[in-house]
């Protein structure tokens, strides 16, 4: 085979494995989410469906299959009042974007050169598009397309709840792109690359994960990630209680399934990003090694370490869902613009200073400095920019004057 053919085959195999893995993962994450929801509420959760046509229950591990079948056999209802083209396009675009993001997300390090796979004589990167130097920009571009899916769905549904959900979503997602970008910029600045593999390699080489150096950046990124993936406590786009599902109220069957999978994939994406950017990706001290000389054992250990970390972040996402009430919309906005944005800027400046002058002092000094900055900023932010909880009109405020103005 020629080089080109090898590359194409390699990419196709990776894409097939990736999509299969992601779909399975999304299905089982739904089960995990339901389990977590049940356990937190002192219930047992789905534990009945096992192997089809037998009485083997397997703790309910057959549930995703049953859920999938249910969605496939449901009637594909298209309400009469919708804009048919956009109504169909919206879920496709959101799912396509959510899947395409994974082209640049590494699921491990590399496979060894002497891997024993026929026709392969060099190391295989465990990422669909290896060496893509604009990786993070690509991630951002595609996560912005996800906003289109939500807004289009809300608009095309021609329904007040959906429309409100779509509008709220657009405002929220645009507002939180900003802190997300700032949290990310610190990492990019310090590690000197937009390529996710390089960022991991740089953390692995120094052995200091970014979360230790940039606690503030991590908090900003984490909060923004919650908001970007529309998870509670920032699930205003859909909030089941107020908007009966928000932008996907009018959807049913496979189209709804596409939305739901895309939502879960967003959560998986940000979990991967959090782990890769702040928790050193596949790196774990004393277990995985740091360079690219891998054997099969280390390659597999690296994949496992990465997956365990990602699962941990996902579990945190699911726990958070049941731990805190939803933000009100004005609180959400003031949190983004008045708290997270300044914090992100402070972090960016601190990282810039660290990146410029850090090499002159031992690492400990840099670490202490960054934590001092983080704690001071946190306290100042907490005291001077608390979340406004009271937005009622004040006494002496005449609402008639406002309406007549």
């Amino acid at each position, binding site marked *: 085979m020629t080089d080109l053919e090898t590359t194409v085959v390699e990419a196709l195999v990776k894409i097939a494995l990736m999509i299969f893995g992601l779909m399975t993962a999304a299905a089982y994450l739904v089960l995990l989410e339901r389990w977590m929801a049940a*356990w*937190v509420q*002192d*219930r047992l959760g789905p*534990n009945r469906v096992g192997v089809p046509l037998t009485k083997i229950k397997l703790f309910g591990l057959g549930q995703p299959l049953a859920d999938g079948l249910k969605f496939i056999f449901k009637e594909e209802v298209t309400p009469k009042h919708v804009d048919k083209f956009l109504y169909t396009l919206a879920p496709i675009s959101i799912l396509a974007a959510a899947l395409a993001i994974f082209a640049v997300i590494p699921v491990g390090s590399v496979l060894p050169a002497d891997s024993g796979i026929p026709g392969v004589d060099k190391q295989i990167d465990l990422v669909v598009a290896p060496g893509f130097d604009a990786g993070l920009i690509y991630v951002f571009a595609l996560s912005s397309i996800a906003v289109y899916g939500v807004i289009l769905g809300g608009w095309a549904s021609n329904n007040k709840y959906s429309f409100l959900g779509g509008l709220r979503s657009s405002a929220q997602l645009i507002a939180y792109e900003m802190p997300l970008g700032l949290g990310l910029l610190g990492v990019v600045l310090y590690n000197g690359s937009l390529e996710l593999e390089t960022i991991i390699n740089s953390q692995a080489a120094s052995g200091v994960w970014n979360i230790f150096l940039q606690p503030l950046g991590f908090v900003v990124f984490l909060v923004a990630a919650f908001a970007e993936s529309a998870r509670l406590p920032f699930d205003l786009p859909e909030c089941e209680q107020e908007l009966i599902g928000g932008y996907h109220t009018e959807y049913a069957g496979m189209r709804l399934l596409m939305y739901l999978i895309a939502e879960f994939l967003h959560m998986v994406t940000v979990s991967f990003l959090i782990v890769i950017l702040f928790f050193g990706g596949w790196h774990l001290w004393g277990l995985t090694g740091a360079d690219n000389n891998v054997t099969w054992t280390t390659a597999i250990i690296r994949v496992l370490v990465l997956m365990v970390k990602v699962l941990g972040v996902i579990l945190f996402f699911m*726990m958070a869902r049941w731990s805190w009430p939803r933000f009100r919309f004005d609180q959400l906005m003031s949190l983004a613009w008045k708290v997270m944005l300044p914090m992100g800027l402070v972090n960016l400046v601190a990282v810039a200073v660290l990146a410029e002058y850090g090499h002159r002092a031992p690492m400990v000094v840099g670490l202490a400095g960054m934590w001092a900055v983080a704690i001071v900023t946190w306290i100042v932010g*907490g005291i001077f920019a608390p979340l406004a909880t009271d937005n009622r009109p004040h*006494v002496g405020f005449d609402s008639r004057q406002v309406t007549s103005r």
Partner: protein
Amino acid sequence: MNADDPNIHWIEEPSLGLSGKMYLPLFVQGLTTTARHLFSPKVTVSFPEVRPKVGNPLIYRGVHRLNKDEQGRVKCVACFLCATACPAHCIDIIGVESPWPDREKYPESFVIDELRCIFCGMCEEACPVDAIELTSLLDLTGRSREEMIFDKEKLLSVYDQTKDAEPMKSASLGGTV
């Protein structure tokens, strides 16, 4: 109603305090509560495998039974008090002259439509001879409407089925035996 309406009583929001403003303590508090519940014992009962606990079988209102006396005869004297008390009109009795010397009448047929029954327990309270009782059997199911209409034999068989687990209530509750 305007914001300065005298009828509105304005209440000041309690201040957050330093730890509240720092957000993290409350954040951790919420997470610990959730984590505690994650591992706490579950309240769900896996029904067909595990029977739900009936608090007090003596006062539980499940499927009816017709009690028998020591000689194995039906205790009912066909006085129609239960049928009269029944708000759902689900009890249908045909009383005939009794073959036994100790009572005037006995039910030739005693039918309860379990689908109409609202399990209020009025029949049990009305019965002067403690013949009809509600047991703690709670999974009352059937595949047809006819199956759910319980006749005398069926009601007596419910007594045979439950008499060991639940002795007649009247004795423990101080009624006539």
